[in-house]
């Protein structure tokens, strides 16, 4: 049951009668008024003098920065035509907005390209605000121009979601759809994708069954060494058969209720998947903590951003949310071991 649920969540509902393939899936542009997708890489980049989108969308969409927003050339004719003010967070001073770019030429309007805009205090940045979406059987597919170059087929740089989940994988050369592994080809303009059953050698990698945690693994993106493959192994309690190769954990997320924490796999050992092999990775608890402190006279200062938590496989846990929980620092007398003072971070940290 759990594997079935996992497939439903992350890999698309199995609909065996529709598989294997090949399959041609038409995709169409969709914007997201409320952005919930977690892209695998930070997609925002400075707007500079304009937003450059090659391919068919045209050249530079000119931008002029204003004190309370920006002026944007939304149709690529070199003249700014839309004032963007955005929603201001009065506490942080951050502004967020969305807009749609459109090529207007002699042949009429071209494809729409929704964007998100934000100003976190260091100037305006932008990222894709929509996706090319379609369905294969009952499985939803959405391809994102995560690297913001106007193309949707950049393996290892663009992103894809399969099914109803909001956590995107890096676009790989293969993908699980309907419980089956397929070779994946996306058209550069994002108008369609092709799925062809994968018949290469595979081995099984399992990051779920030996994750020692009281929470739920929400995502565990593994990326092959050559950057050509990416899979989300969260929820796959029996593991997933992956194309052979060496993989590393790109990032993950662990959750319980509303609380989440991000997992960084930079310091984890690479995971080698050989043909016919099966391996389970033990990670999670016990978690080791390291911290820095500053001592000035009789005062000792601890900083929340100077506490590092490392799991059993070397994974790092970052960005605890919600905040307000604290480790307890105990200061003891060196020789006797008696406790001199306890310290906790205040509730706002």
């Amino acid at each position, binding site marked *: 049951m759990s594997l079935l649920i996992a497939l439903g969540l992350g890999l698309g509902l199995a609909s065996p009668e529709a598989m294997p393939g090949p399959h041609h899936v038409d995709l169409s542009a969709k914007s997201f008024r409320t952005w919930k997708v977690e892209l695998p890489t930070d997609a925002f980049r400075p707007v500079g003098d304009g937003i450059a989108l090659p391919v068919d969308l045209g050249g530079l969409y000119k931008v002029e920065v204003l004190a309370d927003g920006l002026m944007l050339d939304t149709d690529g004719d070199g003249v700014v035509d839309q004032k963007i003010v955005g929603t201001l967070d009065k506490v942080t001073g951050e502004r967020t907005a*969305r807009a749609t770019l459109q090529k207007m030429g002699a042949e009429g309007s071209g494809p729409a390209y929704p964007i998100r805009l934000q100003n976190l205090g260091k100037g*305006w940045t932008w990222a894709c605000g929509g996706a090319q979406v379609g369905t294969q059987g009952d499985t939803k597919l959405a391809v994102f121009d995560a690297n913001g170059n106007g193309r949707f087929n950049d393996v290892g740089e663009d992103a894809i979601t399969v099914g109803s989940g909001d956590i995107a994988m890096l676009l790989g050369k293969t993908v699980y759809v309907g419980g089956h592994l397929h070779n994946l080809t996306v058209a550069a303009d994002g108008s369609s994708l092709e799925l062809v059953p994968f018949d290469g050698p595979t081995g099984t990698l399992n990051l779920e069954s030996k994750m020692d945690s009281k929470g739920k693994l929400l995502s565990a993106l593994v990326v092959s060494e050559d950057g050509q493959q990416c899979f989300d192994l969260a929820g796959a309690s029996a593991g997933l058969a992956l194309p052979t190769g060496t993989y590393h954990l790109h990032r993950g997320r662990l959750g*319980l209720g509303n*609380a989440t924490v991000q997992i960084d796999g930079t310091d984890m050992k690479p995971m080698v998947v050989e043909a016919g092999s099966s391996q389970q990775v033990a990670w999670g608890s016990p978690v080791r903590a*390291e911290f820095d402190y500053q001592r000035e006279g009789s005062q000792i200062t601890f900083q929340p951003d100077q506490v590092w938590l490392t799991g059993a496989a070397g994974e790092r846990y970052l960005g*605890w949310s919600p905040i*307000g929980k604290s480790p307890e620092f105990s200061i003891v007398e060196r020789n006797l071991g008696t406790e001199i003072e306890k310290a906790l971070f205040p509730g706002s*940290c």
Partner: protein
Amino acid sequence: MKLSAAWSRVPHVWQSVAAACALAVLFAAPARAQGGTIPVRVVDGHLVVSCDLSTAANRIPVNLFIEYEGAHGLQLHNRAAAGLRAESSDGKSAPITIHFPDFAITVPKRELGDEDLFEDFTKYHSQEIGENALVGSIGAEVLAQWQVGLHLAEGQIVLTPLAPNGQAPIGSVVTFDDGSIQVPISLINNRVWLPVRRPDGTPGAMMVGTGQYDSWVDRGWAESLGKPAGDVGPVKIGPIDLHTFVALRPERMVEVHPDGVVGKVGLNLLEHLDIDIDRANRVAKIQIAAPAKFPTGDLEFFRARALEDAGAVEAFLNDHKDSRLAAEASKLLLNLRIDEGGSSEEIGRAVQWVCDSTPKDLRTTRMYDLMREMSDAGQTVVVLEAGKLGVAAGRDDRYPNAVHQVHGLLGRTYLEDYEKNGEHATEAWRHLLSAAFGLPEDGSINLDLGRFYEKQGRYNRAYSRYVQAVIQPDSGPQALEALQRVQPLLDDSTAFSVDTIERMIAGKVRNFGAATQFEPSEKEPVDRVVMVEFFTNGHQGDEKGGAIGGALAQEGLMQHFGPEYVVFVAHHLANPQPDPLCTSLARDRAKQLGITDPGVFVIDGVAGAPGAGKWRDAEAIYQKVRDAVVARMREFTEFEFELDCRLEQVDGAWHVIGTGDVYGYEENGLRIQLLVTEAGVLAPGKSTVVVHRAVARGPLTGSNEGLPFEFDDGEHMHLAWDVSLDDLSQANQAFLDELQTTGLGSTVRISKAIDPHQVRVVAYVYQSNTGEILGSAQVTPQGLEQAQ
């Protein structure tokens, strides 16, 4: 120093090493009472309690959520925590007591919660919750210390002390004569789970929660059954079929339970079922408190939602106008219409639904929020449609400014049409004037009115509006450009200048003047000219405090000390974000002095004083800097400057040309620098400082570090310079480009050109190892008549 800690941090309950966890310490022993009854209300799907919070410092009345499943103790908004002084300056937490009508609970500290949620809830439900804000949430870490009776049908929660009976937990469901049942509960991650049977009879578990109104079914499980709308069939606790009481809402459950997660009990079930949870003895008693009446409308919405089809959602709204889910359905409809690129009519209908499903006294506020979003998205038709709805509901809105803001945005939308197509002039004027009537100091509205009058050729009126707009941070830069544009067109036109604008805004912006002018005396002798460098930023702080405090103090100091006594130089740094006057010169000089952030006065490179603060602190800042300057003046300098400088136009460009002889002594590390400063520059920013004074604009030596101080003939150093102001300006723009491309931030580009008749030349000799200034001087170039 990095140490390995002896503990594992387990801030959330999912890590297994819990023994050393701080939470055990934090929440093991909140102050106990004998318990009692907590009156509660369901407001917009949240369980809310009105109570008081107190610390040793203060007591405040508040509203709090009760979230039985929340992985927290007491969450509290920062503003409420500040009022209670919940944390001391050294970071130590103060215990907080929650006062209910007949008992109280004390928790050792607060946690920070979702402040946006708390603020929005207060904003939109202020009538239901009364005068007191909703500022936080009581979670499982507090409630786990009690037996909890959830009696929502009676509007109360009953807390009684835990009382273990020493018996083994019951293993199965027990049914009593009165129809109530007793079930074993499981505690996973500090949450309470009830045993349920799925439709096929297999076991599962449902969490008990009070954080949401709807009861949930795990979306993944429902989808796996081919029931994405959540209508999975009977889900039973003993003989009680939950599915006859409520339509289970399919949502992703981020929870774990060994029997499998079926869903979560929400407030809608608790309105029908009284549940008494006895954690100590691992048992819950459930009694039906209100008869089942299946809400078919809810299920229909979940079906429409699962389809992700706008037509289905709109059909639901047509059939269930008064449904409690109508507001959510309206928002979803609008999302779907926008996401699919619906027609203006379709989006307009969705906007109408959003308006209709919003409480009458919040419709204008809601429409204004929507208008702003749609304006950014270029959906002009929707902006106008929402604006009309907003204006119509304006009188009833609880926020009186909302209707003026709606008028303002409507006016701007019509204005853009007027500017582009020459249409809707009357509508633009009428709405903008209405907006200005309600919000006379709003910068954007004044700016738009100025644009309207300018378009009509009524330049005097336009100028007047632009002057109103130039002093506001949001509209200042655009208003400045507009003023430059309109000034030559005025009937009694004078040249545009800082001085003109300064006269116009006098009285509208804060100012600070020195009561006296400095005169040397025996008590305050002068043995050198002192240089005061002011490191600042136009966006530091706001109108209440930040750069404004330092800028006002600088104004007073410049009035007090003549240029023969003190040379002033202001350097604009790129923190917290670049402003138009940032230069690489400022960055490098700050680096020499070890300064990283703005808000500092530096006296001759050796003494410092605060350069930022509240506007009312300006006098205190002024006094500190004055004292430091006077102290420094007593220190004799051997350096003397003879500077001859003029402004001259060369091929249409203004050049600063001059020669100088500097006397003193040679020493390793000594350098000389010559700067162009501008006496006044207009650059309105968030700090609300409009006119920046003595702004360093660039070096005349070709280097931010200046030149080695070396004698030519054994007794002095001779200098000569000829630098184009345009070159300096271009170098500054290149630096702003660099900041932008390196990700340090971008800024609006105003006051790029250096105004020749504001130019001053500053010279100083400094020790490059320490940054200390050993001698300085300032001259005003000749040739200003030509510049004017």
